[in-house]
């Protein structure tokens, strides 16, 4: 089934689902059809592009986190595979 997504800024490499999505549902991004690789709930994020481990996750045109593992288009993007260092001690701090 085709689903609606919202890419808030054109810099974003993730988009928000505007309904609940099931594995195999699809949407079009930059003229390419992307299938959901897993079930993703309303309001949650889907990857629009390949994002390598350690690379930036961009939403609202800004960095919201970094990838903890390689993420492929159609993957669910959430706190299982991304992390932010804000509000955390940096390496070497006490």
């Amino acid at each position, binding site marked *: 089934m085709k689903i609606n997504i*919202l890419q*808030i800024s054109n810099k974003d490499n993730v988009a*928000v689902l*505007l309904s609940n999505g099931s594995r195999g549902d699809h949407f079009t991004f930059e003229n390419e059809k992307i299938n959901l690789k897993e079930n993703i*709930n*309303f*309001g*949650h*994020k889907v990857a629009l592009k390949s994002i390598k481990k350690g690379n930036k996750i961009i*939403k*609202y045109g*800004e*960095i*919201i*986190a970094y990838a903890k593992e390689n993420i492929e288009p159609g993957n669910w*993007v*959430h*706190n299982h595979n*991304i*992390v*932010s260092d*804000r*509000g*955390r*001690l940096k390496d070497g*701090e006490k």
Partner: protein
Amino acid sequence: MDFFGYKRADGSIGVRNYLIVIPSVFCANHVAKQIAANVPNAVCLTHSVGCSQVGEDLEQTARTLKNLATHPNVGGVLIVGLGCERFTVQEFYEAVRENGKIVEKVVIQDVGDSIKAIAEGTEKLQKLKMEVNKYKRHKVEISNLTIGLECGGTDATSGFAANPAIGKTSDLLIEAGGSSVFSETTELLGAEHILKRRCINDKVASSMLESVKKTESELALSTSKERYKHRSDLISTGNFDGGVSTVVEKALGNIHKTGTSPIVGAIKFAEKLKVKGLNFMDTPGQDGESTTGLVAGGAQIILFTTGRGTPTGFPIAPVLKITGNNDTYEKMELNIDINAGRIVLGETDIDNMGKYILDNVIEVASGKKTKAEILGHEELFNIPRVLNYCGK
């Protein structure tokens, strides 16, 4: 644009005309509650502070209580004290009287016992009520309004529907000469560089950035210990369930509440606004503590966005609930005033929703009750501590 409000002695305009009973210290809470219960429609503001405090911790308590008692939505005040507390009844009473508010006091240790204090307080409160009831609404401009911008129970829709909508409302009110205040310092982490560009000068910017830095280093220390690893999430389980993954993602959605107006002031917790326009107040992220600061700062109405849905209200200020999540609106229609989920459904857009919310603000300012008021919700009154002396 106009609304009908209550003109106060200090020139401020109330959107409500509350008769309040307020303890100077938590030891007077029960007496204060009993007095308020004896006089219909009196509101009691019990709290947990007022003694065994020093420095900014005690100052913040004093500032919050004074600024709530002199709030434009308050018509008259009965202060109930114990007699030996550090935030003295005399200091409290004089501050409220100097503001021009009708005020009386009862001190338990002076009167004798709690039963005598309840009797004396009840009589004083009844007399105050006669005076407070003399206030009538007059037509005034909406430039007299200050709205507090709050969010709680955030989900993904807050960031792209409800918050941008109230951001538009805030811009419209400021264009008309009014003010709005945003707060919740923890929820600026990762978005401060964007807000910095909107500050009118370096002083405002550095004050706001200093608040963020201080908050972030405290959070980092609190979450760094291995034994608290299971207590270290910076956002709530409901935020995660609603699609928000990190504190930065939450912040970037959060700042849409502030619209596009310049940031003209950065103030302390519960401090009254010094400059009209969009202001930042340094507050904790907890809904109640933040809302208490916003109201004490002078906000007569709170716009509260909630994706997950929360029923809470504030005892002396109307709280208008707005959700960007249509499912939440349908589930919690008794609690939520405005369905900004219609933006997501494609039935309206952010600008029109922002205008619609301003129309609602004006109606509420003139006396229309919010759903939280109708149902009697008042959980949001909560004065935070600056210092605590154990558990470090």
